C-alpha cells in the first residue's frame, strides 16, 4: 500500500519535472558525446552562468505579475547599450565607468519599462506576442538611432573636430562592433574581494551610525549594546583583512572554485554547529538535530569529494568572478524579498486574477506597469553584466537574441508562463548553457559537422518556448471556451453558448 503511494508520488514528480529531466539527460548525453574534459566545460559553464543569470532572473517578476514571459526585456537591453555607447564615447573606464553606465541606463530603462508596461495594459492577454513584436519594432527604432541619428543629427566628434573612432568613417552611424577592452571589460568581474569587504565595511558602519543618529533625533531608545557589537564585529572583520596572508588571498580578482567550495563547507559547518550549540545546549529548545547533523555530514562528503582527482582538477581550473556572483545572489534575494512586501503580494494577486485584484482595491494597471519597470531595469543591468564580461559590444546584434535565450533558459529550468522561481532560473541557465557549450562539439563528434549541433541548440531554444506556450494554452483552454461568446460580441442569443 505504502509502496504504491510512493510510486505514485514518484511518477507525479517525474511528470511535473519532465522538461527539466529531459534536459538533464540531453545535457549529459551531449556532454559525453562531445568528449570534452570536465575542466573545460565547467570553466565555460561558470563563465556563462555569471554572464547570463542576471538576465534570466529579471524575467521572474513579470511572470508572477501575470504578464507571462517578458519578451520586452530586449528593450531593457537596448537601454543598457545606449548608456554603454555614451560612456564608451566619453572614455569612462573601470568599475567607475561601469557604475556611471548603470546610473545612466537605469532612468532610460525606467522610462522604457513604463512605455512597455503601458502598451501591455492596452493588449492584455496578448502580452507575449506583443512583447515579441515590440522587440522587433524597438530594434527598428534602435537602428534608426544608432545608424542615422548618432552622427547624423547628434555629432560625436573628438575634441579636435574629427569624427570619433566609434563612428563609421563617414561620421554618420556607429560602427558594428565596439571594443570594450580599454573601458569596462571585466569591470565588475574583477572587483577584488578586498574591495568588496572594504565597501561592505563602510556600508555597515554608515548604516549603523545613521540608524543610531536617526533614532536619537527621533528620541527613540537606542540599543547601544547592539550598535556597539555591530561596529566592533565589522571592525574586526575589516582588521582581519590587514593580515598579510588574508590580504593576498582577498586581493585576487577571481576566486578559485576549490577555495569557494572550501569556504562554503566551512561556513555551513560553522553555522550548523553554532545553531546546534545555541539551540540544543544553551536554550534547550525544540531543535531538529537530525537535520543539522545531516547537513554537516553532507558538507563533509562534499569536502571529501574535492580530493577525488577528477573533481579536484575541475575545481582548481575554474575561477569565479566574485562580485558578479554576489550581484546574482543579491537579485535572488531581492526577488524573494519583494514577494514578501505589499507590492509583491499585489503583483501576485494581479497575476492570479485581475478581476479579483481589482475587486480587492488593487490598481491593476499601475501594478503591472511597476512590474514591467522592475523587469526592464533589471534586464538593462543584466545586459551590462553580460557585456562587461564579453568585452565587445556588437552594436546591432547584442540585444537581438537576449529575450529568446533568457526565456528559453527559464523554461528549461522547469518554469512555465505562470510560475517561475529563482531556483528554476538558475537551474535553467546551467542546463541550457551546458547544452550550448557541448552541442556543437557533440554534433562534430557524432555527425562530423559542428553546424548540426549548432542548429540543434537553436532549435532547442525555439522548440522549448513553442512547447511551453502550447502547453500553457492547452491547459488554460478549457475555462477560456466559455468566454468566447462574450468576446465574439455578436452572439444573437445567450443560448448559443451552451
Amino acid at each position, binding site marked *: 500500500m505504502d509502496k504504491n503511494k510512493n510510486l505514485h508520488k514518484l511518477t507525479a514528480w517525474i511528470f511535473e519535472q519532465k522538461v527539466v529531466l529531459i534536459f538533464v539527460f540531453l545535457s549529459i548525453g551531449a556532454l559525453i558525446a562531445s568528449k570534452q574534459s570536465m575542466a573545460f566545460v565547467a570553466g565555460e559553464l561558470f563563465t556563462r552562468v555569471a554572464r547570463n543569470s542576471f538576465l534570466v532572473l529579471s524575467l521572474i517578476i513579470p511572470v508572477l505579475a501575470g504578464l507571462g514571459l517578458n519578451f520586452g526585456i530586449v528593450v531593457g537591453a537596448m537601454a543598457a547599450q545606449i548608456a554603454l555607447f555614451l560612456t564608451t564615447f566619453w572614455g569612462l573606464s573601470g568599475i567607475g565607468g561601469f557604475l556611471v553606465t548603470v546610473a545612466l541606463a537605469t532612468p532610460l530603462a525606467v522610462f522604457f519599462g513604463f512605455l512597455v508596461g503601458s*502598451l501591455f*495594459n*492596452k*493588449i*492584455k*492577454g*496578448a502580452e507575449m*506576442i*506583443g512583447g*515579441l*513584436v515590440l522587440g*522587433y*519594432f524597438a*530594434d*527598428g*527604432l534602435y*537602428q*534608426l538611432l544608432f*545608424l*542615422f541619428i548618432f552622427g547624423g543629427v547628434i555629432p560625436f566628434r573628438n575634441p579636435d573636430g574629427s569624427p570619433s573612432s566609434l563612428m563609421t568613417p563617414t561620421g554618420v*552611424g556607429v560602427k558594428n562592433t565596439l571594443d570594450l577592452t580599454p573601458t569596462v571589460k571585466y569591470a565588475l568581474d574583477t572587483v577584488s574581494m578586498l574591495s568588496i569587504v572594504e565597501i561592505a565595511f563602510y556600508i555597515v558602519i554608515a548604516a549603523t551610525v545613521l540608524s543610531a543618529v536617526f533614532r536619537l533625533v527621533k528620541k527613540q531608545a537606542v540599543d547601544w549594546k547592539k550598535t556597539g557589537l555591530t561596529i566592533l564585529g565589522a571592525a574586526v572583520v575589516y582588521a582581519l583583512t590587514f593580515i598579510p596572508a588574508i590580504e593576498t588571498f582577498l586581493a585576487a580578482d577571481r576566486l578559485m572554485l576549490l577555495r569557494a567550495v572550501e569556504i562554503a563547507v566551512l561556513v555551513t559547518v560553522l553555522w550548523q554547529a553554532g545553531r546546534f550549540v545555541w539551540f540544543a545546549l544553551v536554550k534547550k529548545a525544540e531543535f531538529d538535530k537530525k537535520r543539522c547533523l545531516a547537513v554537516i555530514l553532507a558538507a563533509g562528503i562534499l569536502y571529501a569529494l574535492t580530493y577525488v582527482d577528477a573533481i579536484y582538477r575541475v575545481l582548481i581550473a575554474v575561477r569565479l568572478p566574485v562580485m558578479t556572483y554576489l550581484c546574482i545572489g543579491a537579485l535572488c534575494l531581492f526577488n524573494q524579498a519583494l514577494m514578501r512586501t505589499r507590492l509583491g503580494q499585489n503583483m501576485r494577486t494581479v497575476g492570479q*486574477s*485581475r*478581476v479579483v*485584484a*481589482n475587486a480587492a482595491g488593487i*490598481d*491593476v*494597471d499601475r501594478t503591472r506597469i511597476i512590474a514591467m519597470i522592475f523587469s526592464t531595469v533589471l534586464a538593462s543591468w543584466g545586459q551590462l553584466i553580460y557585456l562587461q564580461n564579453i568585452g565587445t559590444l556588437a552594436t546591432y546584434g547584442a540585444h537581438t537574441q537576449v529575450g529568446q535565450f533568457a526565456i528559453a533558459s527559464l523554461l528549461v529550468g522547469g518554469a512555465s508562463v505562470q510560475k517561475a522561481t529563482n531556483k528554476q532560473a538558475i537551474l535553467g541557465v546551467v542546463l541550457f548553457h551546458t547544452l550550448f557549450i557541448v552541442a556543437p562539439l557533440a554534433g562534430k563528434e557524432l*555527425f*562530423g*559537422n559542428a*553546424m*548540426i549541433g549548432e*542548429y*540543434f541548440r*537553436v*532549435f532547442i*531554444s*525555439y*522548440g522549448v*518556448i*513553442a512547447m511551453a*506556450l*502550447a502547453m*500553457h*494554452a*492547452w491547459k*488554460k*483552454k478549457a475555462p*477560456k*471556451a466559455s468566454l*468566447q*461568446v462574450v468576446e*465574439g460580441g*455578436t*452572439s444573437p442569443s445567450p443560448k*448559443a*453558448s*451552451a
Partner: protein
Amino acid sequence: MAENAKKFVARFGLPRVIIVGFFLLLVVCAGAFQMDLLQIFSDCIRRWGMYGILALAMVPAIQCGIGPNFGITMGIVGGLLGGLIVIEYRVTENAALLALGTQLLGEENGPFLAKWAAVLLAILIGVILATGIGWLYGLLLNRVKGSEMTVTTYVGFSIIAFMNIIWTVIPFKSGELIFPNAGQGMRNTISLASSFSEVMNKTLAFRIGPEGHCLTIPTGLLLFFFLVCFLVWLFMRSKTGVAMSAAGANPAFARASGINVNRMRLIGTTLSTVLAAVGILVYAQGFGFMQLYNGPMMMGFTSVAAVLIGGASPNRAAIFHVLLGTFLFQGIMALGLPVANQFIPESNLSEVMRLIISNGIIIYSLTQTQGGGSRG
C-alpha cells in the same frame, strides 16, 4: 469639410491614411530627385505579384478564426522542398519537355514550357507536403485556442530551426544545391537561373515606353496571382468557405448552427499553409533565388503586416485587403530604397523602415482588438 475628412479617416483607418500619405510622399520625393519613376513602378508591380500570395495565405487563417498566421513558415518549407526536388531532378533540362516546347512555342520561347512544368511541379509537390503539414499544424492549433498568435510564431520559428538541421543532412546531390568544395549540406541561397527563375515574370511580359526607361508589366506573374486570388475568393463564397467564416466570426453561434468549428479551423489552417507553399515558390521564381536556412524566418511577419496595412484586423480579412496592403507595403519598400539612398547613400535605411512599419502596424492592430480595461 473637416467633418468629411474625419469620417473618411475613421472609415479608412488612421494607419492606412498615414501609410498612403507616406507612399505618396515617397513618390513625390522620387519625382523630385528625378528618379526613373517608371522603373520604380515596375519594381512595385513585380514585388506586388511576388509577395501577394504569401499575404493571401492570411485570409483563410484569419477568417477561420486562428488569427494572423505567423507560422506560414510551416508551408514555406514545404514549398522550398518542392522547389529543391524539381532542381535535383533537373526537370527544366528534360529533353522531352524541351523538344515539345520548341515544337509548340518555337525556338526562342522553347524552354518556357519546361520551366513552367518545373514550377508547376514544384508547386504541386509543395501543395501536397503543405497539406499534410498544415493538417497537423491545424490539429495543434485547435488545442491552443485563444493563444494562437504566440504559438504560431514560435512553432513557425521552431520549424525553421528544425529545417536548418534537415538542410544540412538532406542527401541531395545536384551541384546547384549543395555547397561547393565538398562542403556539407545545402547552400544558403540557391540560384534558380538554370531552372525556373522569372518564368512567370517573363511570360507574356510587355513594356510600355522605350527600352531602359519603361514600365515593365510581368503579365504572367500578375495573372497567376489574380488566378489564385480568384480561386480563394471562389472558395470563400462556397458553402464550406461561408461556414468557415462563420466559425471564425462566432464559434459558439456557428456550433449552434451545426457547423463543426474545429473542422473549419482545420480547413482554414491547411489552406493557409498550402497558400504559403505556393506563395514562396512564386516569390522565389520572381526573386531568382531560393533562400534556405534562416532566410524565410520573418516572412510570416512581413505577410501579416501586409494584410493589416491593407485594412484587415486580426479577426476579419478579405482579398481586397491583401491586394491593397501588399501593394502599399511593397510599394513603400520599392520606393523607399532608392529614395533613402538619395539621403544617405549605401545605407540600409529602407530595412530600418521595414522593421518599423511592419512591426508597428502589428502592434497597432493588437491594441485595437485586444483591449481589456483596467478592471481586468
